């Protein structure tokens, strides 16, 4: 059965630049994780280290208590479907889709060919085309087919919806949830299209500047933020003592995003004329990692 994938105190440097700083993370079985972070936050590096495709400079990565590095049993349970690119002479891009999937069938012991064929048909992929000749969306579909048909207990997808149109994205989330319902396997999905995926993620991992900023149940995480708006003096009074993540002003009106649950803010706002609204996952992410992320206590 599925086991826990665990990273402890990971450090990764490229030359003098440290891209992961003391990252510790536990991927539990049977959960859909969303990994979100800004460009260059270290998402792909972290995922490649978790799946032993990349070395690291300090720390450990274990699966079921055993190191994943050169561990045949562990690697058979891990699938990291990387984002494909259109570079002509790069790696697998010179392969036809059918050859790429054939290679996958040789490496993944649980490869489900019938499922792969079904997905290829559903996405309308031309398997005789070379990967480098595919559109960005079609390349994403290939990575999705590979990830899902691998049937790996821990399946990791790197930017699976990049380039997909909205219909295809909806289709992907549906397929993903159907698969999850059927198999209960673990998914880790990195994406920049946060809002659409928020309902799919059971837990969210936020990576910021090479450090884990949060690993929480998505609903609990989102519920821990509130947006308070109203007259400046009211808003200041209500948010006093809370961690302010973002401030915006329009004349005498003020809006403040705080790290506090809505119920807490409502209690604080008793008798004052302020609006308290929930914050979306995307907004919470922006407040935590954006340029103006200057967390202060009001």
């Amino acid at each position, binding site marked *: 059965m599925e086991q826990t994938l665990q990273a402890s105190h990971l450090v990764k440097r490229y030359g003098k630049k440290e891209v992961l700083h003391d990252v510790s993370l536990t991927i539990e079985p049977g959960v859909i994780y969303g990994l979100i972070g800004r460009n260059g936050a270290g998402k792909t590096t972290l995922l490649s280290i978790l799946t032993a495709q990349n070395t*690291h400079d300090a720390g450990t990565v274990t699966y079921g208590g055993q190191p994943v590095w*050169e561990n045949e049993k562990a690697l058979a349970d891990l*699938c990291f479907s990387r984002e494909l690119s259109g570079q002509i002479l790069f*790696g697998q891009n010179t392969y036809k889709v059918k050859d790429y999937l054939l*290679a*996958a069938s*040789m490496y*993944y012991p649980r490869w489900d060919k019938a499922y792969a064929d079904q997905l290829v048909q559903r996405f309308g992929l031309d398997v005789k085309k070379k990967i480098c000749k595919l559109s960005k969306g079609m390349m994403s579909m290939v990575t999705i087919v590979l990830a899902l048909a691998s049937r790996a207990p821990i399946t990791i997808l790197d930017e699976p919806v990049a380039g997909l149109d909205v219909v295809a994205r909806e289709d992907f989330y549906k397929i993903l949830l159907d698969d999850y319902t059927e198999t209960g396997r673990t998914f880790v999905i990195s994406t920049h299209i946060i809002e659409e995926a928020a309902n799919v993620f059971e837990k969210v991992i936020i990576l910021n500047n090479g450090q884990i900023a949060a690993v929480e149940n998505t609903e609990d995480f989102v519920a821990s933020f509130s947006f308070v708006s109203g007259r400046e003096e009211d808003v200041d009074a209500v948010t006093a003592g809370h961690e302010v993540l973002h401030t915006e002003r329009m004349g005498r009106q003020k809006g403040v995003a705080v790290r506090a649950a809505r119920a807490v803010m409502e209690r604080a706002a008793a008798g004052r004329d302020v609006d308290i609204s929930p914050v979306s996952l995307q907004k919470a992410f922006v407040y935590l990692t954006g340029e103006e992320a200057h967390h202060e206590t009001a």
Partner: protein
Amino acid sequence: MKLLKFNRNALAQLFLLLVGFQVFFSVLNMLGDRSQEYKAGYMTSVGGLYLLLFPLIMMTSFAGISVHISLTMGGLRRALGWQLAALNVICCAVVCASQWGSMWVLSRMFGSDSPVFLARFPRLAMLASAGTLVLGGLGLWMGLCAQRWGGKALALCALAELVVAGGVITWFVISFLKGGAAGDILAWLLAPRASAASLAAVAAGCAAVAALLHLASNCLLKKAVVRV
């Protein structure tokens, strides 16, 4: 042998392509009004060129693709080491087989002095093996350090290929400019002796390459594991 399994089509295509090249250029050569010695030298030159260049190109291509695919799909580095070594030898064998086979057929068809080429062939093949050894080693290094040093290793492979290709082509051009057949330049190196011993030496060379790469891979891998 996963690497060989998914590279088999490419190897077969390359074999046919090289046979086609050799037959095309050799027929043109055979139809020309030149001496038998010149023709044999010409074919030796063309064959030598292929033997020196194509294994390098193939290994760059196959190693790059295979390493990437294997590692991104959970392949083991220690398995990759010996598979790359075997692929290296097979690449060389494919080129040798295509050249030697097509020349043998041509010599039968035209009744020319092609046996001179056939006689020189084993040593040419040894040269090619040495070439693939260099690139195979780089491919192996790339495999073991993929994504950490992959870009640099590929650049080195390309550089090695450029140096070899540039050197060989320059050599041939100068030879032609001097008025002699390019094959004559090789003649001092390639004594016209086709013996079972030479062929055995080629096979032993290939086996040595494979063993060396396998040993090197294990050695490097232990270091990598210790490091991680």
